[in-house]
């Protein structure tokens, strides 16, 4: 069934003023929940990288409001509440009897709606005058859940190897702390103080959300809030449909490859995107992608493949840099978008496959959706971004036999864009975390960062060149173990319309005697000795348009800033630099030849 934006607008029942007022209230509550969580959390993946989500849902699990944090968390709480209800049904439990005032549930099962198992959702029911009316929920990436390797894990046999899985598990039962569960967690994760502290922070933030939401119910009435949130969904939906309607109807198809599954190094994995625009509807079919793999390198469909697809479409079609209007942070904008993936494929694995490590696949997915759109609306897209990050967990055991774990997101860069160069060294396309200050890392862990800087001479050449990736050198001050969830060591990022490709990423283990070992993009539980070094070079962005169309002044500026050499200026851009300036005549001759 197709719909157009005008029909959706007609369905709204609340006037625009009340809608703005209640919408603002709901946003504020969801935002406050996330904010409190970030401020009081222990692990840097929450407090610095802000890999969290927060929201309010109806008792049935429909979204009412959501906080604006990293895109990969968008909409995942809906899937988790859905997963809880599936669990109740499988267990033969009556939800009305199971769910009581004062309960706190945790949930992280990747086959039951979770984004992936390190993201533990804390979900608490909200009761008003004795009736269960809503849920407040937060999601957060936890530092360790007791998987096969510390922090992150790639080479896993199945979902049971992921560590500790929870399906609608109560950690508080009618206000009473369920000590056995807390003990179980404490005894099964490597960094118990951090994980328990962060769970507590999540619970407190759900409590705040509950209190604020009940205040709003008192003021506005529950029915009015429900109607407003429904209208806000319609509002988001009509905004999105209007934008989809502007894209020429048709089917756009793109394919890309991932390095490997983390175990079988020679087998690349196909990612296939078929995008169909039909009026105000958009279908993204991933079924042509690789079969599911026998490691942890699969993608939960509801928890990750869908959110990543929704996100990138929204970033392209309702880009906040070019749109002034209020775009509600809710799942209404996703209503016109239908994502499909064959059961048993990389993006829709079956039990008992593991789906712990899923970020690189959705990075490439986002990049390919963008590439498919570039066939239709190149003025709103870009050349190839990174697209990958290196997600790395560093760990070791200190003098008190206690684990330290640090998870790092190594960024990539954006491709060149219709009006400007790509962004340098920013988090990959479908997420938006923050790095951790070098001084903070060195104050906390036995690591020394020898450099963290832009990767020169690698940006894809173009009229608008790609952004620069980064390079980081880590020196280990004690014996350590790392796991890398990465990709893009075999394939660089693509250029658009005459723009050049950017080279692939590169990882090296450097020993004190100078011996260099090239590492694949994924390793599980890899060992470094004290004094060893680890070199990370991330992917830069591809170029947009013919490099010979780049103004010579910009090429000269890049030379002066040390991004390119004179040789690159000549060979890639056709710009001749002599004696501290551009030789314009020689440049003209070279560019015309």
């Amino acid at each position, binding site marked *: 069934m197709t719909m157009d934006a005008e029909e959706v607008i007609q369905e709204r029942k609340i006037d625009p003023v009340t809608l703005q*007022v209640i919408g603002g209230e709901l946003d504020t509550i969801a935002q406050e929940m996330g904010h409190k969580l970030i401020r009081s959390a222990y692990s840097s993946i929450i407090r610095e990288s802000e890999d969290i989500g927060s929201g309010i849902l109806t008792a049935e699990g429909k979204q009412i409001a959501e906080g604006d944090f990293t895109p990969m968390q968008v909409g995942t709480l809906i899937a988790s509440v859905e997963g809880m209800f599936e669990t109740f049904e499988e267990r033969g439990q009556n939800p009305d009897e199971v769910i009581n005032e004062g309960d706190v549930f945790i949930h992280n099962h990747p086959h039951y709606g979770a984004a992936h198992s390190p993201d533990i959702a804390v979900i608490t029911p909200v009761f008003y005058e004795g009736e269960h009316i809503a849920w407040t929920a937060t999601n957060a990436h936890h530092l360790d859940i007791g998987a096969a390797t510390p922090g992150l894990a790639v080479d896993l046999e199945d979902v049971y190897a992921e560590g500790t899985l929870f399906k609608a598990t109560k950690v508080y039962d009618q206000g009473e702390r369920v000590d056995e569960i807390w003990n179980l967690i404490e005894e099964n994760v490597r960094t118990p103080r951090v994980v328990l502290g962060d769970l507590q922070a999540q619970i407190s933030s759900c409590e705040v959300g509950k209190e604020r939401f009940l205040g709003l119910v008192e003021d506005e009435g529950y029915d009015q809030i429900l109607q407003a949130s429904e209208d806000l969904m319609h509002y988001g939906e009509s905004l999105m449909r209007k934008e989809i309607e502007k894209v020429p109807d048709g089917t756009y198809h793109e394919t890309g490859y991932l390095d490997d599954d983390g175990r079988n190094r020679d087998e690349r994995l196909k990612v296939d995107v078929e995008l169909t625009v039909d009026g105000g509807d958009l279908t993204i079919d991933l079924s042509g992608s690789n079969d599911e793999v026998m490691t942890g390198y699969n993608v939960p469909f509801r928890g990750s493949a869908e959110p990543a697809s929704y996100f990138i479409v929204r970033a392209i079609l309702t880009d906040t840099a070019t749109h002034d209007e209020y775009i509600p942070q809710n799942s209404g904008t996703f209503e016109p978008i239908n994502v499909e993936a064959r059961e048993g494929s990389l993006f829709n694995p079956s039990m008992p496959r593991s789906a712990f490590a899923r970020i690189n696949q959705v990075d490439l997915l986002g990049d390919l959706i963008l590439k498919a759109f570039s066939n239709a609306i190149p003025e709103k897209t870009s050349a190839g971004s990174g697209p990958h990050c290196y997600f790395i967990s560093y760990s070791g055991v200190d003098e008190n036999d206690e684990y330290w774990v640090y998870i790092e997101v190594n960024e990539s860069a954006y491709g060149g864009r219709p009006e400007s160069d790509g*962004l340098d060294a920013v988090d990959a396309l479908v997420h938006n975390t923050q790095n951790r200050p070098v001084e903070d890392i*060195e104050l906390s862990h036995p690591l020394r960062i020898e450099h963290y800087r832009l990767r020169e001479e690698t940006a894809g050449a173009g009229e608008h060149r790609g952004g620069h990736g980064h390079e980081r050198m880590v020196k280990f001050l004690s014996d350590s173990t790392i796991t890398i969830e990465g990709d893009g060591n075999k394939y660089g990022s693509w250029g658009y319309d005459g723009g050049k490709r950017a080279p692939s990423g590169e990882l090296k283990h450097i020993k004190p005697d100078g011996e260099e070992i090239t590492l694949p993009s994924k390793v599980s539980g890899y060992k470094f000795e004290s004094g060893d070094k680890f070199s990370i070079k991330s992917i830069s962005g591809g170029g947009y348009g013919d490099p010979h169309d780049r103004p010579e002044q910009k090429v000269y500026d890049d030379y002066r800033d040390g991004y390119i050499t004179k040789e690159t200026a000549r060979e890639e851009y056709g710009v001749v630099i002599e004696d501290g300036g551009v030789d314009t005549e020689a440049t003209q001759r070279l560019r015309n030849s």
Partner: protein
Amino acid sequence: MTESTIRIGADVGGTNTDIILVDGTEEHTYKLPTTDDPSKSTADGVLEVCERAGIAPEKVDSVLHGTTVGTNAVIEHEGAKTGMITTEGFRDTIHIGRHRKSHTFSVQHEIKHQSDPLVDRRYRKTVNERIYPPGKVVEPLDESEVREAAAELVDEGVESIAVCYLHSYLNTAHEDRTKEIIQEEFPDVFVSTSNEVVAQFREYERFSTTAINARIAPVMSSYLDRLQERLDDYGFEGADVLIMQSNGGVASIREASQRPVTTLLSGPAAGVLSGQYTGKSSDEEKIITFDMGGTSADISVLPGRLLERDPRDSEIGEYPAITPMLDIEAIGSGGGSIAWFDGAQGFNVGPKSAGANPGPACYGRGNDEPTIADAQVVLGRIDPETFLGGELDIDPNLSEQAIQDKLVDAVDQERFSTVEKAALSVLDVANSNMYQSVREQTMQRGYDPREYSLVGFGGAGPMHTVDLAEELDISKVLIPPSPGIGSARGLMTGDIQYDNQVTLSKRLENVDGDELEDRIESLTQRGAEQLRSDGIDVEEDAIFRKSIDCLYEGQGYELNIEYTGTDGDWRSRIRDQFEEKHKQEYGHYFENDPVEVLNLRVAASANSVEYDPVEIESGSEDPSHAETKSHPVSFGTSLEPEEYETPRYDREDLRAGNRIEGPAIVDEFDSTVVINPEWEAEVLPSGALRITR
């Protein structure tokens, strides 16, 4: 304290410079257009206000100044040609930042610190040196590289150099030595080291703050020199010239020239002080200040004291600047904010703004989009005849036309069915945006806004204050006299204050009591020296506010608690204070988790001169002598508009003790006070209006 101190406040805004002179309990105000070089309008205004008050320049004790020179240089990406010398391997720290995009949902946006870097990459040089926690030198400073780097930069025409090394907050030796070398070789080049500007960990934020300081210091110091010169020429040699800082304290020209990054929120901070003063002189402890102008509104909550912003949220023009600043929330709601429907028939007020130029539709300067001010005009709240003393022609027909065309004709909606209803809808949404902001700053921190008084000022503030109070369920509103120059009045109340801090970063149980005491003492001494250089009798007049930032080991956000010394069981005391604060902020605390002492802070300030409120003539309860006219004005919401016959009063003619029943409107030169139905205003001896219900 000397009797009858004469102080002048001069606050420079984008359009106007506001001047206030206080002589005992007498107050004189003056407003003039800001000149291209604001030192001119400032000095001219200061002289003019003296002439009007009949006071000779040599009698003036101090001139307090709020300036946007530094802020504008940052926002407009101007300032000195700046270089940076930094640790080998970290040339791009200020370019990469926190590797975060400034828009989450975007492909096309720019990141300010990349598109307009504070220091271009070609002027960022690296040298070999390295300090590692807890402050040891793991690689000595290569001095010849420093000389070489500095020479290259100077050769390129760099006027100011930021020296930014990793972990310099733990050991300043390498930065200090680098500064020495540069000053030896190039005495004319300005040098800022990161440990002097802000000795706190997190390199990106510290480097950025230092680069801002380096960039604006030459501009600021030459501006302040010009100002001093002009004032001297006019005969004000005897007056102390003091500059308002973001922390709400004032600094001497000497200090402000060295650390201009501390002045970036000069104007807004003065606004908060002005609100605080209005509260104090009306015996209100807990207040919310609401300062609304043409393009934005500044809101700050004072639970009996000034609150500081979390350094991690402090930025100017999208560049982090982590010096202490008052916690002021700026939102894009001003008189010039535009009301509009988007493609999906969503109704928006702001962030688009017509600003002061072209301004609201009624100015007739080419903007035909309806603004908040246009809504006020069609509702009859702004009187075209008295607006800005009648100096600016405004045409209500243009307001009506804009609302009719862009709102009433745009949708088929009850709330937009007439111009009047549409105008009330504009106010409903504008007020709701402001309400959200106050709510975030109060309820999210456990403050109940209902216990507060709302102080409204700025050109547009007093028109919205009672509406906003109604939304917040606040029952007391204060409007100071001449609210349009509110910020200038705040300048009069600023103490001289210098903040110094250092990162300790140690587990509480490993902190040595003597070391803690020593380091606090050395911060205290540093502040004392700064005060002494300003000619202050430290033993007599100085106050030192000592505090420490703590967190649970592993957390990323510190909480600030008062430092109470190392007597007795000081560790337990710190722990208890911290846990109490943690519980209040987040709702929980951990009994057994290790606490870390992160930063030590000392704010050194000197007793300022008391600013006694002026007193106006008193009269009876009856205000009718001040009534100028009466006409219908719309109140209520767009669902239920209610028209009331509403009298207008001239504020100049009001006397202390007069009581005005709402609905009513009080006009004065630069502002309009709207008193809603069911509210009553009382004129206080200070001339402020207390509006209650």
